[in-house]
């Protein structure tokens, strides 16, 4: 092979820059994620999240649930994770979340998907080369029922 694969290679870029976001624009995010028992058990124990609804099936059933409840912080983290390639992979630090509401429980084996709407954007005064973008993100279960929604703001790199 005369040509080095590295010289021949074309980068397949990922992520978006500040410039592409337009207020009102809607992103239907990729992949979806079935949250399984292992996910919930690992996440809940790693974060010391000691409410037995999230790790004791008999306790959850005694509280009118069909089985263990997925830790709401994991539901939030998973919905957030699914949005990253579209929203903040090309970005900078995650600044904050407002108005987060959990709308209904998620159970092990449920599949979540995510959608976001661009709500606001402005150039950062403090961080040169970055803008601040705010999105409204909604997470749904496999029956298209809303399980969580929130507003998130992030620093996002302005394309050079």
């Amino acid at each position, binding site marked *: 092979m005369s040509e080095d694969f590295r010289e021949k290679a074309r980068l397949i870029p990922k992520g978006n820059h500040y410039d592409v976001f337009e207020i009102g624009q809607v992103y239907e995010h990729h992949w979806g994620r079935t949250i399984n028992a292992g996910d919930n058990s690992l996440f809940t124990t790693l974060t010391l999240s000691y409410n037995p*609804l999230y790790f004791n099936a008999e*306790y959850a059933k005694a509280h009118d649930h069909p089985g263990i409840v997925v830790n709401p912080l*994991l539901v939030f983290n998973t919905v957030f*994770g699914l949005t990253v390639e579209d929203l903040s992979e090309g970005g900078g630090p*995650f600044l904050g979340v407002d108005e987060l509401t959990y709308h209904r429980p998620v159970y092990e084996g449920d599949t979540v998907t995510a959608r976001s709407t661009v709500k606001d954007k402005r150039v950062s005064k403090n961080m040169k080369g970055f803008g601040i973008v705010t999105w409204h993100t909604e997470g749904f279960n496999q029956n298209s029922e809303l399980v969580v929604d929130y507003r998130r703001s992030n620093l996002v790199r302005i394309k050079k």
Partner: protein
Amino acid sequence: MALTGTDNYFEDFTVGDVYRHARGKTIMEYDNVGTTLQVMNTAEGHFNEHLMQNSGAIFPQRVNFGGVTIATVVGLAMQDTGENALREVGMDKIRLKSPVFHGDTLYAFTEVLGTEAGDEPDTGIVHFKHYGVNQDDKLVFEGERRVLVKKRGWGAK
């Protein structure tokens, strides 16, 4: 014997109380890298050390995913504030005040901001403000959280 504590029912939360939670948690690679990838977060700043050291990034090392910082601080507060909860209601005004790196240790504090009637019998909603600090006592996280908590005697009908 009860599966949950007896001192963290709705009636035990008094507006103005501030708690220092007993346990801290050192953030390890498996917390950040593991959870970031588990939840499909594709931002390399959380899992590509080589990139962070060589790209002129704001912080020249992998940064803990903010979702993990939030979940860890709320988790450290969970036994005292949500062990007898029926439901997490929501969160607001979450701010990540400074970055968290592998090896940092987080501690949690909680202030009771308010209490209100619950939407189910024998319950109430408690409104908390949580704070997360690192080993140098630097504030890394603050945010509000509402939880639907059992009243004493819940379900005893």
